[in-house]
């Protein structure tokens, strides 16, 4: 178990390293950030001074090692646009994204999994067919379009909910979160539903597929022959057996939603990290891009690790060995 953790974490280090090289070279290939940011009225002299000041006249490898050196001293750098440290910039916006993602995956799981179970349990009923049809819509209709429809309906026409932005925040336990105020909930509900639709569709289909397969499996028939009630068969036997793929996909989706909820964040003007990273890319704010992507890689590695640990818990046949 311990060996396993060490192996996984050292893998992560390699991935983070590779990623930072790719981003660095990529940004270098696009061009000089100063040319994107600089004011049109700047003289050649001002431009050259800046390039020197930010070390952009140095060869690529030296710029990279300066960056790595700073990271090892715990300094991810300062944003070239905001001139505040990247860590505080990202963490000022992370809570907003976290709460949005949390609410949306909860909605997706609470509706998606039961709906999928039902659709697999009675595959020929009208309800099941309806659920399946809706699930197709869930992940085939573009998110931003549904977002716009939601805004038009609930904010512009009906006037029930605000069209965007994050609500008031209040202290809850140790966090400042908008989930602690009713105003916050009125702001979060639309973007969270919007963000959950794709995942919900995916979970419904996965759960249903597993369910249909399991219903015909021998252990289910055997349990039935024993006279166990259906409720017990579904919730304590089948659910456990089909959770492995569900947990895998859930974990991956959680990661990608955290990192790239940008479409929903843009449509609903949600002050999360997704929008921050897109703006940083547009302005070639390299310290923010590199550091953020490094954080994303770490995030994915951690989520995958947790997923693996859950596997072991769900399926006694899975053993976690070092180096595997």
């Amino acid at each position, binding site marked *: 178990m311990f060996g396993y953790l060490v192996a996984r974490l050292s893998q992560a280090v390699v991935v983070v390293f590779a990623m930072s090289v790719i981003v660095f070279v990529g940004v270098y290939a*696009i*061009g*000089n*950030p*100063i*040319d*994107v*940011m*600089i*004011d*049109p*009225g*700047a*003289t*050649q*002299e*001002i*431009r050259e001074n*800046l390039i020197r000041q*930010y070390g952009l006249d140095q060869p690529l490898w030296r710029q990279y090692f300066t960056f790595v050196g700073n990271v090892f001293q715990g300094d991810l750098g300062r944003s*070239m*646009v*905001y*001139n*505040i440290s990247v860590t505080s*910039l990202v963490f*000022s*916006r992370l809570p907003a994204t976290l709460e949005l993602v949390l609410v949306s995956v909860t909605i997706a799981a609470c509706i998606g999994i039961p709906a999928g179970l039902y659709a697999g349990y009675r595959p020929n009923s009208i309800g099941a067919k309806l659920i399946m049809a809706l699930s197709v819509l869930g992940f085939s209709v573009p998110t931003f379009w549904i977002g*716009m429809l939601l*805004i*038009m309906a609930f*904010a*512009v026409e009906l*006037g*029930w*909910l*605000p*069209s*965007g*932005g994050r609500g008031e925040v209040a202290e809850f336990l140790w966090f400042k979160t908008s989930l602690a105020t*009713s*105003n916050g*909930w*009125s702001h979060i509900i639309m973007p969270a539903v919007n963000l959950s639709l794709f995942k919900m569709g995916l979970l419904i289909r996965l759960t249903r597929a597993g369910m249909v397969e399991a219903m015909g499996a021998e252990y289910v028939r055997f349990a039935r022959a024993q006279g166990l009630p259906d409720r017990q068969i579904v919730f304590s036997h089948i659910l456990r057996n089909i959770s492995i793929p569900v947990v895998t996909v859930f974990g991956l989706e959680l990661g990608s939603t955290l990192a790239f909820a940008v479409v929903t964040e*843009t*449509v*609903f*003007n949600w*002050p999360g990290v997704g*929008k*921050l990273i897109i*703006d940083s*890319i*547009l*302005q*070639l704010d390299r310290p923010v891009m590199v550091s953020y992507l490094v954080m994303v890689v770490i995030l994915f590695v951690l989520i995958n690790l947790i997923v693996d640990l859950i596997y072991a818990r769900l399926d006694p046949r899975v053993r976690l060995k070092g180096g595997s």
Partner: protein
Amino acid sequence: MLRNTLRSGLATLAILAAAPAVMAQDLTIGLRAGPDSIDPHWSTLGSQAEALRHVFDTLVDVDDKLQLKPGLAVSWEAIDDTTWEFKMREGVKFHDGSDFDAEDVKFSIERIPEVTGPMPMTLYTKYVDSVEVIDPTTLRIKTKGMAPSLPNDFTRLFVVPTETGKDVGNEEFNSGEKAIGTGPYTFVSWQPKGDLVLERFDGYWGGAPAWEKVTRKEIPDDAARVAALKSGQVDLINYVPATDYLSMKGDNNLETFVSDSVYILNIAPSVKDEEPQPIKVNGKEVEGNPLQDLRVRKALDLAINRDVLVNVVLEGLGKPATQLMPEGFFGYTDKLGKREYDIEQAKKLLAEAGYPDGFEIDFTCTNNRVPGDAVVCEALAQMWSRLGLTVNAQALNGTVYFPAAAREEFTMTMSAWGTLTGEAAYTYGALTHTKDAEKGFGNFNRSGYSNPEFDRVFGEGSQTLDPDARRALYEEASFIAMEDRALIPTVILQTVWAAKSGVLDMNPRVDQETRAYEITPE
């Protein structure tokens, strides 16, 4: 219990929905872009200056047509070739109650090089050699050489109190600790990309503004901004997209305000001896650079139907442009006349130049910098194809376009240029003057254009302190560059604000700034 919670939640929602009607003294604005920092010396970004003007005053201000008017300085004059004298406004207070005087201005000028970032404010102090405080209301600036445009540069010189210190940076300003100015509003709170909250400053020298509390929300997405207005979350938005503008005009609940902008879409044909991307006839690269021939550039110009660009492509939100600046700017020449569309004449000129069957040319534009840049780009390519050219039009993201344009990799480009200072030196000095690092001219001259006659007239203008004589010289310089098709202006972009009906009244500004203190309740 749950029911009660739900009920109180719904009640809160209902109150929220009704809130704007109750608090008539509050103004909430949805803006496409906000500041990057609260430190007024950090960046030259336009949206930064626009936001910080509410908190800090500049030494010189500009009116809605970008012409100079007194700010913290009540008057200024050049007392000799290299000295400007500014007279300070008396009785001005900072938000913390301390008095404003010339020392604060000196401090602010000297603070800029210490703290400014990759969009450097040193741009506005580049002519300053030394600053001398004669008495609390008199400031003398020694300039490096003659600097007729110094008052223009000082329209972006925000003044902070001497007590601020040179070592404080963005953190102290963003937290509000050092966000102390003389402006009409006091700073309440801000976070990067978040809302800027402001409160009326009752001791403002220009008279306290109408709105008690102003919230400037940053909503970059066009559709989201429009939705925020329509749902009543905000009272006013800027940069309404053209498509929404048409539907808003017919909506009784909304009011629109249209204004010319400083931005003009210009075509820059490279006139270097060898064009960066080859121009071809029948697939073979031509000898020399056809764009060096004035007849070819004139033909390109004549083939542009500006009325179509304005009325069809931009859906009415534009004006045909005859030069690089809008009318009324310092150095705008009225000798040029309207640019006519004449395809026959264009074909004739092209044939005379030796290209009766046209040629194949690459044409590169931006696609996300200003509204309409990508569509105008495509429309131009089609117009030139009627002239017989094969145009490979490509609209690029600004992130890719600008570095490549700086490396001068394009044969012909189109991008927007805004005369942010309201005078010709800024625009023509950067775009059409021969590249000259020493004098600081031609920094954005990527086409290789060089005309000694233009340089002479413009250079004389830049060394003339008398405003009227300078204006005449700049007008002549504008005329020379435009007749020479150094750049080919196409359209002046217009921008739209929209507000809830009956809430406010505003006079839209040509620099597109949304200044809460110039907006009045209806």
